[in-house]
């Protein structure tokens, strides 16, 4: 009988071990480097405690990047969820060419994120970019917009790209959720004379909640750490005005050679994400207990 009880642990062990090794060891390294007196080549020369962390927290660029990261994350996650839900609803019902529509919506997932960002950067070029030439051809623009030359136009573009590349994943999650709602629930609601909107509110939304939650959590994690989009389009500039924490971290570590500070920063980012996830899950579970 103990074998029976051990079974789930045995089943879970290989997967868990694999996932943990790849994270635990580097995490340990980050702690060592983050609390160490380390040269620009990652060679640890001594222990310096919280010095690196304090240096980062005192840096005004850190605070600016932090604020911007919050805007970045909330903006993209919210935008993605708000777009993906209706899109999933549309794709859930049969119509001519639905298969093609689904493939198109999924296409951004097929391209490496770095290359997507590079292509967008190419297209957003002020003088020789194809977005400007398209918009001018359509009569929307008179002259060229220098999209990436200042943060006021560059950052919204980066947010847009972020949403576009997050949609395939989120739509997939929602489609799965919608497909898992048993048919008879919809039929029952229809039989009881509920309007489509009421049925949506009382049947679809509550049953989709777990899927929305997982979409929010996973998207938040991926978006918070998302490096290629901003890096390839503006490099965090001009003058660090589009820097988020992860691009600021790259500069600290691999340009300025302040690896100790970069490691400390990465631990701060990790703590922030952990805090968010724990809080979110706690809130959701509290809500579920209330509803029950």
């Amino acid at each position: 009988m103990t074998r029976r009880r051990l079974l789930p642990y045995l089943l879970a062990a290989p997967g868990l071990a694999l996932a943990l090794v790849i994270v635990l060891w580097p995490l340990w390294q980050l702690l060592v480097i983050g609390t160490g007196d380390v040269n620009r080549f990652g060679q640890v020369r001594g222990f310096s405690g919280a010095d690196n962390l304090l240096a980062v927290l005192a840096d005004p660029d850190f605070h600016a990047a932090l604020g911007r990261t919050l805007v970045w994350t909330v903006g993209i996650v919210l935008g993605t969820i708000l777009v993906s839900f209706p899109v999933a609803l549309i794709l859930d019902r049969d119509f001519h060419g639905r298969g093609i529509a689904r493939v198109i919506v999924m296409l951004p997932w097929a391209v490496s994120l770095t290359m997507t960002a590079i292509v967008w950067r190419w297209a957003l070029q002020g003088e020789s970019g194809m977005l400007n030439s398209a918009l001018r051809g359509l009569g929307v623009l008179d002259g060229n917009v220098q999209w990436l030359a200042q943060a006021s136009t560059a950052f919204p573009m980066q947010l847009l790209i972020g949403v576009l590349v997050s949609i395939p994943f989120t739509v997939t999650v929602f489609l799965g959720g919608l497909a898992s709602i048993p048919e008879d629930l919809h039929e029952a609601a229809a039989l009881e004379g509920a309007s489509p909107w009421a049925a949506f509110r009382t049947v679809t939304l509550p049953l989709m909640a777990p899927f929305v939650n997982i979409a929010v959590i996973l998207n938040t994690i991926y978006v918070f750490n998302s490096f290629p989009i901003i890096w390839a389009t503006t490099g965090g500039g001009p003058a660090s005005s589009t820097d988020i924490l992860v691009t600021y971290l790259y500069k600290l570590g691999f340009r300025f050679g302040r690896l100790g500070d970069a490691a400390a920063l990465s631990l701060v980012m990790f703590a922030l994400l952990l805090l968010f996830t724990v809080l979110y899950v706690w809130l959701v579970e509290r809500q579920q207990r209330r509803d029950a």
Partner: protein
Amino acid sequence: MTRKMRRTIWSWALLSPLVVLTLFPFAVMLVTALKPASEVLRPTWLPSRLAWENFGTMWQATGFGRALWNSVVVATLSTLLAVAVSIPLAYALDRHRFPGRSAIRQILLVTQMLSPIVLVIGLFRLVVALGWVDSPWGVVVAYAAFSVAFTTWMLQASFAAIPREIEEAAWLEGASGWTALRTVFLPQALPGIAAAALFSFVAAWNEFVIALTLLRSEESYTLPIQVFSLVAGRYTVEWHHVMAATLSATLPVAVVFAWLQRYLVRGLGAGAVK
């Protein structure tokens, strides 16, 4: 007009902004890839002629064939590994109630929280210690490890849609746990497994930072590195090659998406057998 026809028009109308925005970068890629080299820097949408030979010259110039093969090997092996360990993990999380279940879920989530940029130094040292630098194995294991969390989540979602009754029925008929799993559960789970495998494959196919760090010789570079090196820090960038390379790297995956799109959704928990 039939209801379906009306729905078709509405659906496409509502989807059109997203379709345009999604297809825009691909259109840019295609147009630029087909421009003769002298026109590449001009932002016109119609090339003077369709320079199909760009794909050929790109293939030669970037060692595309070799990088393609490396990517295929690495992505396939890492997917197999990820799926192999995730299936039992997902099964345990879905089918069994045991202490530590939600802790495991949280831990898996945590493994996603560190950006590859941040892990690069530590990961590299680990791979060096194991002697796997420049070997595909370091990359394969790293990809599989990162993939476990998401693959497990997808598998769990699809397993949840398979009613326990069919396994229990098999047990009642005297089949052992393992046989029931093989003959009754797995066939039902196949679409979900295929979907999870596909996403793991695509993530590995497109991954860049870890491959760049762990691989050193051009013979072992994967596609994302080869394509990136066309753009990254050269004095002259041959944009038509860059776009042709990106399209070529994306095409296989897009084709598989198109082929499997029916199963992708089903794999996530649809259509449970009543």
